[in-house]
């Protein structure tokens, strides 16, 4: 899960990290009140959305007066940024900036450790910096036994802060990094990012904040559960799936897929494309043989109006094919489906599954390619 800027900054502030004075608001009146009573002028009005690119979309603007705050906030609230409607804005103190840095703590899969990435060329997309100025990006591994190695961190510090701009002492810098690492581990994050980071009165200050939380760790952090609904850019189907504990991702195509296992679900999408079709979704019904999951899955894929045909691809191992077929039969009785269905089921108890599917008028193939080619054909026939 991704924390919105204002949520990440709340985490920062409770860890003792300096941020500009700021207040999150959801209405025009509150925005003006925040600027007048607390933040002052100039201030920045920042859209709070779970997608990137809000700056380019006009979702971050400077306001110098009460009238400008009102005017800008009324434009930003309700604005659409990459499919997300802006419902919250952050009214933030406009801090004087002499130089912008980039800083993040991120999981490094290769070394199996967190890594600090820092650049004196902050304020822009880090991907951009790594392409245009790779020499301006510095990395430092966090050792799980030693923590940060002082000698190494000193070298890093010299490289990053050798240029112009306000200075920060090594000890302040080091303790700042330690606070970030602390957040990274204590909150089960996989990314803690500050871009831009500035030096303000000899202290490090986070002008922006991004935290990605490990979904597997959320169970240990009830303080974030209130954000789950607000923070996602999910489609209607993705939301339904999450509530039913299914993994579903909306795609652009018109062949709905129901598959067991994430790898096979991806390979199924790829094979659909290989045979000239296009998948409407990724859907992993998981390894269990719970018929209710199949019923829910069917409801979700049938609710997507773009769908022209349905493909079922089940490789039963631990999943029992007859359970899937029973769930499907139950689903077909509950959910009215007018779409053509192509079905492939092999593995544990597949003969029984075939009998059940046949009893509701669905043919079962044992061959994945054959079933997919059929689904592609069915998706085009209706056009």
């Amino acid at each position, binding site marked *: 899960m991704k924390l919105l800027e204002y949520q990440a900054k709340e985490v920062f502030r409770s860890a003792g990290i300096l941020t500009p004075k700021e207040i999150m608001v959801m209405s025009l009146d509150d925005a003006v009140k925040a600027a007048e009573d607390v933040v002052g002028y100039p201030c920045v009005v920042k859209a709070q959305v779970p997608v990137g690119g809000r700056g380019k979309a006009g979702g971050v603007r400077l306001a110098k007066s009460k009238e400008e705050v009102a005017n800008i906030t009324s434009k930003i609230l309700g604005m659409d940024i990459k499919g997300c409607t802006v419902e919250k804005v952050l009214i933030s103190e406009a801090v004087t900036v002499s130089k912008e840095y980039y800083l993040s703590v991120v999981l490094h899969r290769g070394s199996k450790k967190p890594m600090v990435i820092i650049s004196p060329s902050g304020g822009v997309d880090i991907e951009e910096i790594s392409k245009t100025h790779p020499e301006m990006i510095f990395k430092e591994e966090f050792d*799980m036994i030693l923590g940060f190695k002082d000698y190494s961190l000193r070298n890093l510090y010299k490289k990053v802060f050798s240029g112009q701009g306000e200075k920060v002492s090594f000890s302040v810098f080091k303790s700042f990094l330690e606070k970030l690492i602390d957040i990274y581990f204590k909150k089960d994050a996989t990314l803690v990012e500050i871009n831009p980071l500035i030096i303000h009165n000899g202290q490090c200050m986070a002008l922006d904040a991004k935290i990605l939380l490990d979904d597997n760790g959320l169970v240990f952090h009830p303080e974030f559960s209130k954000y789950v609904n607000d923070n996602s850019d999910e489609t209607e189907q993705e939301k339904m799936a999450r509530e039913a504990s299914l993994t579903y991702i909306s795609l652009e195509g018109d062949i709905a897929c129901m598959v067991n296992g994430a790898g096979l679900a991806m390979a199924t999408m790829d094979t659909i494309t290989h045979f000239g079709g296009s998948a409407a979704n*990724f859907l992993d019904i998981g390894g269990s043989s719970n018929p209710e999951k199949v019923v829910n899955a069917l409801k979700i894929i049938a609710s997507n109006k773009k769908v022209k045909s349905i493909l079922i691809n089940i490789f039963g191992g631990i999943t029992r094919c007859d359970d899937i077929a029973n769930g499907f039969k139950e689903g077909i009785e509950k959910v009215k489906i007018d779409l053509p269905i192509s079905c492939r089921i092999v593995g544990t108890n597949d003969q029984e599954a075939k009998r059940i599917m046949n009893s509701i008028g669905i043919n079962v193939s044992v061959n994945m390619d054959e079933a997919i080619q059929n689904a592609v054909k069915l998706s085009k026939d209706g056009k």
Partner: protein
Amino acid sequence: MSILVDEKSKIVVQGITGRDGLFHTEKMVQYGTNVVAGVTPGKGGQLAYNVPVFNSVEESVKATGADTSIIYVPEKFAADAIVEAADAGVKLIVCITEGIPINQMVTVQAYLKTKPDIRLIGPNCPGLISPGKCKVGILPGDIFAKGNVGVVSRSGTLTYEVVYSITSSGLGESTCVGIGGDPIIGTNFIDTLKLFNEDPQTQSIVLIGEIGGDAEEKAAEYIKKNIKKRVVGFIAGVTAPPEKRMGHAGAIISQGKGTAASKVEALEEVGVRVAKIPSQIPELLK
């Protein structure tokens, strides 16, 4: 030969009295796997599918000489179960559990690094099988046949799909290893490739990768320098959208990195035959 497990492996099942643990213990025993012990704290002294249950891994190792552990413990306790197995001196630890917090695994990996003779497979994996000898995990035994193809994969059911097509084509497998779909895993592609390269039974290798991370690119570098056997590959997720986690915690194209295209290109560049769809794999092996 085969790699990692064979008829001599002595298996201890951690979480043997749980729903999944018990079900798969039965399947493993029926396959002919030498399951010597089970562990569930507080349930020592019982029998589970005729396997003696102990309160700790240490007790089970002392009593039975178990050298391989399989973990079916829920995600909240699985990281600790790995550490317990390592402390008890189990040499091969296979963790099936999905959903262990990533930073718990970061800590566990740092700990395991201090014990270089212990190997972890997984977590979030289907386990491994040396057909006809030993099955440690949840893979469906009946789709495998003893043979000369080594299979290594980040996936579960996709592996079964590929194995099913390999076996149906008349070939068989030496060992099939599911290394897991998490971002942080114990044994990686390179570790497994190295073992397959040294194994006389294995004549060719199938590598099944997916989007996310750069393990396939690293494997390609290794193949170029070290592997003389034929390698056939498949990468899932060619059509996956960016910034979306495709079921597996590790399967995500992030900031333009970890795409299927990059992996396919890296593998093809070093001579790996990469299948466009899973059903092409047996043909590419011949």
